[in-house]
């Protein structure tokens, strides 16, 4: 069965109400905007989103915010909820204040590691990050190697929407520059990973040493070309 889909709409057609969805990208770089637009069009409700910088202030106009705006999101797990001037209220913060969206704030490295753990079959891990802060609230604390650490659990999702620079038709992926960010780890952490790709090449078109996400982690590919 071919992994290559003709349109983003087909690729996201089975994302239903209540799904947990990871979305790659950082400040718009490596963000699967075309898949997000298709998901908004499809319109499932009560989504839980896992995302580095959900909401506001960066220059990229098409991001998870379009789903929040459309009232499709019930929860966001993220590390950025407020941007730029600390006094500016973001779309996400507004939705949270209105009781429309629940926000779980996670330190960025812990977010990355929880996602990786989800993909790697690790149940939970101890990290020194966040000890003695709000990020540790309600979490188990243990001294390991003389240092206080908190227990953090793996994150998994039903779908990951990611973006890659290059793919072969088997689903091997290569990212470019700082557009890599959360995409490779999110590719591992979901039941179904859908990649929007700028360039599609034949099998054999990527040197095995250069593959950044092996095809085992990718279920669907949509060639979208370069989108500004």
């Amino acid at each position, binding site marked *: 069965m071919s992994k290559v889909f003709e349109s983003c709409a087909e690729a996201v057609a089975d994302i239903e109400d209540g799904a947990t969805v990871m979305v790659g990208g*950082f400040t718009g770089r490596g963000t699967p905007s075309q898949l997000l637009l298709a998901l908004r069009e499809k319109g499932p409700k009560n989504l839980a989103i896992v995302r580095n910088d959900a909401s506001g202030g960066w220059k990229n106009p098409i991001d998870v915010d379009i789903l929040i705006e459309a009232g499709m999101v019930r929860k966001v797990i993220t*590390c*950025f909820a407020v941007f730029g001037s600390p006094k500016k209220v973001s779309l996400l913060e507004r939705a949270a204040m209105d009781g429309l969206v629940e926000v779980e*704030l996670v330190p*960025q*490295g812990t977010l*990355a590691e929880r996602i990786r753990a989800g993909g790697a079959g690790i149940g939970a891990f101890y990290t020194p*990050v966040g000890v003695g802060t709000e990020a540790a609230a309600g979490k188990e604390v243990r001294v390991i190697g003389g240092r206080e650490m908190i227990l953090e659990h793996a994150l998994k999702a039903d779908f990951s929407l990611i973006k890659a620079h290059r793919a072969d038709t088997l689903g091997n992926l290569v990212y470019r520059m*700082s557009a890599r960010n959360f995409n490779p780890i999110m590719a591992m952490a979901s039941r179904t990973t859908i990649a929007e790709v700028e360039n599609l090449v034949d099998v054999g078109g990527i040197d095995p040493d250069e593959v950044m996400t092996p095809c085992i982690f990718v279920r669907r590919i949509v060639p979208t070309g370069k989108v500004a």
Partner: protein
Amino acid sequence: MIIMGEMMSDEIMARRVALELSGDCFVNLGIGMPMLVSNHIGTGKQVMFQAENGILGVGPRAEPGMEDKDLGNAGDEHVTVSAGASFMDSATAFDMIRGGHLDATVLGAFQVSEKGDLANWKLPGRKLGSYGGAMDLAAGARKVIVMMKHVTNDGLPRIVRECSYPLTAKNCVSLIVTDIAVIKVVDDGLELCETAPGWTPAQVQQLTEPPLIVRNVSSWPLSVS
């Protein structure tokens, strides 16, 4: 009320921070004011800048017209990379940070306590904030340098006995560079090391909540201001 000197500019603070970054080191600059530091690294130093979105070897900002859509720092600025740079995913970028591989990080702050506690991610009373990578950097970098204005817009001290703002990490700051002084976090409290031109230790103390240890205060190096 005593007459105060003039607050140093952000650029001058950045120049002072840059002196702390010795040759051959790896440094993460926090979003905002700390990013200015990269413009002031002296020649002969091999400082490599890390950006937590997955770059080791961040270079100067991209010239207008030369921006690459896939290349930006964690603060969404179009940047370049220096020779010998590398890209990595977010997990690896934070392995570097959490694993203690960075020699230093320079972070902005709302408050620093006399024990070196740092608060820089959320305003009190606010529903949400942004951790970004600050908690990871504060917990993981070998040396945490805070770069901030000495007082708030309302004139209140940012160097306090206990942080009233939500904490980023406890007991993590080693050095505070403000627009009027350089202060070291030592075992027995905060030691005033340098004052900016026009400032006396007493004047700096006036704008600082906890008592400053004054042993051997020098003036901010002339090269900086």
